[in-house]
């Protein structure tokens, strides 16, 4: 085990090279719907027991299933109303199980990136060869069944290994969302090729806010708007990224859907916000900023 992920260098927040976004936007705002499949009777691997209750965990399973039967449709409607596209954190087996959901997302111009095969199959304990199988399955399934070239990655159920990030770069993946260390994209240290992190969030993520920090829908909306206000203000000096991860089984509930509606209405009422997908943010960053930031980091190394 390592005492540090050893994937990025310290790079103080102030006095960095200026990041700009298309059209002079101050903030790149993106929404990450996590569209997931949890299995009722998953196999047991090393490292994590999938459900808190003995199988079948009817409560936990049916809670998530609500997202795919009901919640996702409410979420798609509200996002379309505000012209906000999703970048879907996808358990890729969902392409096989529920092609109707994949089709609807594609019709709205949404992006798909991999969140593993199922949310009940973890990377813990996998060899590099085994992780390559998951990455390959993801790329192939998203190409063959969702019609997209996959650009990004969020480890299934946020299970990582020390090597995963190297394997993503090796497979030609453009960005990972597994690191929460920054509000801007960042170049990462990898064995071969190149890879960046794009900001994801566990702070304005509906799972921890609603189910661990016990936020009411009003409080949830308030927190997301506060996150936006601060990043929007700072974006006047240096372009920022705000990611809002959502789960259809949570925000797609009737007592909560208005919170999403209110947040998106608030965000889209501002000028200077780039409503992007994660793939677009990564592509822009590689084209305009990767080299500059990499140079700045190299200079810091030389000076040290």
């Amino acid at each position: 085990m390592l005492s540090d992920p050893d994937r990025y260098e310290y790079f103080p927040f102030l006095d960095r090279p200026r990041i700009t976004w298309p059209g002079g936007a101050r903030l790149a705002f993106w929404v990450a719907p996590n569209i997931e499949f949890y299995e009722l009777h998953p196999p047991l691997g090393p490292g994590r027991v999938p459900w808190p209750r003995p199988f079948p965990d009817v409560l936990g399973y049916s809670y998530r299933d609500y997202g795919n039967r009901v919640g996702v449709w409410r979420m798609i409607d509200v996002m379309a109303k505000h012209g906000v596209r999703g970048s879907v954190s996808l358990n890729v087996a969902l392409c096989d199980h529920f092609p109707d959901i994949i089709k609807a997302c594609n019709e709205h111009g949404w992006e798909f990136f991999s969140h593993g095969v199922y949310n009940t199959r973890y990377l813990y304990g996998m060899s590099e060869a085994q992780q390559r199988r998951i990455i390959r399955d993801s790329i192939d399934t998203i190409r063959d069944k969702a019609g997209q070239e996959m650009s990004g990655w969020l480890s299934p159920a946020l299970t990582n290994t020390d090597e995963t990030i190297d394997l993503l770069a090796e497979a030609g993946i453009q960005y990972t969302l597994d690191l929460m260390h920054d509000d801007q994209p960042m170049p990462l240290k990898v064995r071969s090729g190149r890879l960046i992190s794009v900001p994801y969030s566990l702070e304005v993520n509906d799972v921890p806010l609603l189910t661990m920090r016990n936020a009411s829908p009003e409080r949830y909306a308030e927190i997301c708007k506060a996150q936006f206000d601060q990043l929007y203000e700072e974006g006047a000096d240096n372009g920022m990224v705000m990611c809002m991860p959502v789960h259809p089984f949570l925000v797609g509930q009737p007592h909560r859907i208005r919170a999403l509606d209110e947040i998106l209405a608030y965000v889209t009422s501002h000028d200077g916000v780039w409503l992007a997908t994660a793939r677009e943010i990564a592509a822009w960053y590689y084209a305009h900023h990767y080299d500059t930031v990499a140079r700045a980091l190299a200079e810091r190394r030389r000076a040290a």
Partner: protein
Amino acid sequence: MPVADSYFDYPFRGQRLDHERYRHQTLFTRRPVQWPQQARIALWITVHCEFFPLDMANLPFRVLGAMERGYPDYWNYTLRDYGNRVGAWRVMRLLDRYGLRATAAFNSDVAARYPELVHAVTDRRWEVMASGVNMAKLHVGGMPPDEEKALVAESVSTLRRISGAPVRGWHSPAHSESDATLDLVAAEGVAYVADWINDDMPYPIATRSGTIHSMPLTHEWSDRTLLWQYHQSSADFTNQVVEAFRVLYGEAAQHGGRILSVALHPWIIGQPHRIRALDAALARITAHAGVWNATGAEILEAWQRQAAPP
């Protein structure tokens, strides 16, 4: 420990679910249903009368409301028992004032210990639903089938005997089932279960004793989840119940009748400082035209008369 090759087997990966109990079905493409009285919302109130034994073991998992202190935990035992002595009656008086009927979901131990409460329920033409034996006797995967069969039989037969009611609904303590629960309750003549929280409307479930139905009992905006698990304020409870109503009521205009489940645990909502949160929610909901109050069995019957066959 390395990961076995079998970890990469995906036996159900295809256009289907990973079990045979029900089919995947999107809510918004189903045939609309029409409730009696041209109503947009069927208002289904459930009052959960629970018994938490003083000597309960928190195995194989701890249920919300379980004992949490050293034995004998009078603090938690008596606060739960308060629900059956005081809280349930306070809830009943409030619902009477609105002329509302409910489905009472009983742990059968409550009926055996406090039959007056069951009689008060049947006197009001409320429905009696079976909810296991008590909050310590969980239905869980891996339990001996005979043991579970006896639990189901005890719950249903005790409640039928004391109430004289048919008992057509089942709700497992803590929404917990084994792989056999659905088969066992169907064999006892139960018509619907309210454990699976994956829908806002009924849907058919396959069992070894024929098709039964799942009814959309809320877990999300129940008093237990919002007030006990999430420690939210009474006003937050009112607002979320009313907001669920508002959204479902709105959808009903386009998609056909919807169900609003209001799930109440008298040991929580029946406290003096909380009961007005329920009052406030009911006042705002019943102020609308097009609200049909009914029991679970009545709602299912109306749904079955017109819903598409599975």
